[in-house]
């Protein structure tokens, strides 16, 4: 589903350039739940942002379902972000002045769905992440875990090909982290959602099928943990 070839990302130019990614290649299949791990500064966030079309690679190739997305013009990338790619931020990145439901359905409206349809899609997505009955609350009235689940609902409401999450539990305690990871697990197992998640915590590994490890901008290991999942597709 995703093919990355020799991806490089340099910040700045010349001698002082920071080489955050020095040529990373891998492939992710539909239905996989992948963790990207590595020391701080190893390039995890940089990689994920490029994959989610929030940033451009300096060099290399990136295709989603055979489409060379690295060379798309901004307007099309924007549309791709809206319809195909979900991104979950470490700090939730919700719009504080919008209710949980509005945060989710603004995207469906952007896609051109009617208000009613958008609202229903939003409620369904919130339902899926276990936030039934809390759709009218604004972010300030939700716990960290709940906020992150609203963010997940926003990301999955459009039924994206791939869901990216950059340390989604970094600001959460263990209980809230588990809630979020359980949601991921369920989305992955029940709906076959492809998920790529950056994480620091070793115990998160028990939720995933595959672990990609980065070090200094280079992929140093790619382990499959759950063989059964891999064989699925």
């Amino acid at each position, binding site marked *: 589903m995703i093919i990355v070839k020799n991806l490089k990302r340099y910040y700045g130019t010349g001698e002082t350039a920071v080489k955050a990614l020095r040529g990373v290649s891998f492939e992710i299949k539909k239905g996989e739940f992948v963790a990207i791990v590595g020391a701080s500064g190893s390039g995890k966030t940089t990689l994920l*942002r490029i994959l*989610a079309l*929030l*940033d451009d690679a300096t060099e290399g190739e990136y295709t989603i379902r055979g489409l060379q997305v690295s060379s798309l013009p901004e307007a099309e990338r*924007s*549309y*791709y*972000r*809206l*319809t195909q790619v979900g*991104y979950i*931020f470490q700090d939730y*990145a*919700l*719009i*504080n*002045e*919008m*209710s949980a439901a*509005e945060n989710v359905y*603004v*995207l469906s*409206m*952007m*896609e*051109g769905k009617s*208000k009613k349809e958008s609202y229903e899609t939003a409620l369904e997505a919130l339902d899926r992440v276990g936030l039934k009955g809390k759709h009218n609350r*604004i972010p300030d009235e939700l716990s960290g875990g709940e906020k992150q689940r609203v963010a997940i609902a*926003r*990301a999955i409401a459009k039924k994206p090909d791939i869901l990216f999450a950059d340390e989604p539990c970094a600001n959460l305690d263990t209980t809230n982290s588990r809630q979020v990871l359980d949601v991921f697990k369920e989305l992955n197992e029940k709906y076959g959602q492809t998920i790529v998640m950056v994480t620091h915590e070793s115990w998160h590994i028990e939720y995933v099928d595959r672990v990609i490890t980065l070090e200094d901008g280079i992929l140093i290991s790619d382990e499959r943990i759950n063989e059964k999942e891999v064989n699925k597709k």
Partner: protein
Amino acid sequence: MINDIRVGALIASSSIKRGNKKTLMFIVFVLSLIFMNLVFLPSMIGGMMVLFTGYMQDYPFGDVVIEPSGDNTYINNADSVLQKVRAVEGVRAATKRLDVGASIEHKQNVVGVTVTGLLPTEEYEISRYPYIISEGDFLGDLSRDEIIIGAAIAGTSPVFGEIYDDLGEVRAGSLVEVTYSNGVKRTYKVKGIMEGTFELVDLNALVHYKEIEDVYGLEGSKATSVVVRVDKQGTEEQVQDKIREAGVNEQVFTWADKSETLIKQAMQSMGAIDAMSKFVSLIVGAALILIIIYINVLHRKKEIGILKAVGITPRSIVLSYAFLSMFYVSLGILAGLVLYLSLMLYFQANPVIFYETMEIRPVIDPMLLIQSMVTMLTLSVIAGTLPAWSVSKESILKAIWGR
């Protein structure tokens, strides 16, 4: 595009609904002041215009004024004109006047003036001259060696004291020598000093109509103007037409016709001030709106980045700010209107008083109000979209994470 508008409206409305109410109130307050600034001074200047035109009616022109046609210096048979005019329906009173140039001398001081020859008893119905004598008395029917002098030339005016040359403390009872433009000299006793707090009056002098006739050797009831007052204000133009229909072949003007040309001259500097104040207000207003919205946009830069990151089009984001600033400005205009109208009410009841007697009541000019509203709304759209547009052009990474 429709989706962009819907999403823009949703973003704007939720940010209004749940945004900080204090900030909103502050923004609206500032905008209302900008609006006030745009309309208040012009209203005051408008009030001065009204005052000025009031003077035009009360002194030189009446409601309708008849002047010699063509190159003639005089209206030839003013009495027959008066007869026709007085017969016209809607005319309350009319009189003839003779304006001539002269210089007045008193104890080595000489000043140039316009001397108006008038019929004293008729003026009570026509002008306010008889009512503004601050010292002494107005002329009577037998006043042949007497003169009324404006306060500014007498040197007693509290208003124009320092501005114009004067005769140096002329009082009622003083003797002055007048040299007319044809060289004839006459000595008059000052019967009274008139004070109208208006240059055209206070720089003038009045004598009996017969005096001018005599000095210039005029016969057959000549006049430089026939001044007409109407029964009802607002009917000047009808009366003007009727006078023409009555067979008066001289030029017939309404006070407004006359004031217009006069105002164009006399109020030119005022007009320049007015235009400048409007211009400055607009620049200041535009800058303030821009700053307010810009700060607002900067404040929500991260949000703009997030919206873009999740796939909201930059166009909807820019639109949402256009809606937002239009909303702010509409509220600001509304608040400004309330403020403005209450101030107007206040000043109607308590006019600004200049020089003790000039009461200035601001006038409300609906055209100006509409113009200001449209200007502010247009500005707000520009001021709202420009900053949002520039931020929405930034890369997502920069908007969200600042680098």
